[in-house]
């Protein structure tokens, strides 16, 4: 399972421990999630998404996410760089 947790955390200036406390898990578990070593339960995934106020597909994906730069600045043909 792929996720955008590191990017979202950096974007919002949230520490791992703050996020962990907000969603009710150990700080280490956020590290495992970010590293892709642990797939969260549906409940935890939904709690994380609710906290970021984003839909699930914006935070978690079964396929790798395209780089943010490619999504923000697509090529002239409209395809990701």
């Amino acid at each position: 399972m792929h996720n955008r947790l590191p990017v979202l955390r950096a974007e919002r200036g949230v520490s791992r421990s703050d996020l962990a406390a907000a969603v009710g898990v150990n700080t280490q578990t956020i590290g495992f999630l970010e590293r892709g070593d642990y797939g969260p339960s549906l409940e935890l995934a939904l709690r994380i998404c609710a906290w970021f106020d984003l839909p699930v597909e914006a935070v978690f994906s079964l396929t790798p996410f395209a780089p943010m730069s490619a999504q923000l600045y697509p090529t002239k043909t409209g395809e990701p760089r």
Partner: protein
Amino acid sequence: MSIDADKRSAQLNRLLAEKDARIRQHRDRPLPGWLASRRNRRIVALTPVLPLIAGFYAGTLPDGVARSALMAAVAVLSVAGILLLRTATRLLDSAPDRLLDEREISERNLAYRLAHGLVVVLISLLALMAIADGLVRKAGSGSLVDGDGWISITITAVLVGAMIPAAVLAWRHTEPLGGTED
């Protein structure tokens, strides 16, 4: 009567909260530097092998001071081993479920499952030794285990069996990159 019950309940809740706070504080501490590497944690995970070998060897010794001394060493090694393993796993094997999150509970459940297999192997080893001892006795050529040796071997098996879940956790334990840093 009701006031007494309320007081007792409040006291119990306070003690429980204090205990949880102590465990949480212990679990939040970073691992000691020498336990930071996976190789060292795996070496620590092999700790139960020492009391196992020493205890089984003690069982084959004749009744006497040597066996008692060796069994005392086995007890000390086992207690030290359990404390060491608990440090290496941040008390994951003994912390109550209410202090763990879903990842930690699933990690512990998996370790218990693996540990169950290892305990079955240990008990099977004991059974094979007992059968072999019985056969040797029947053949009239002495015995594998003298006198109270089986007591030493059984105590060793209990101590080692108690260490196995923590040992499995220590063997499998991984720290996320960057530890608990933000």
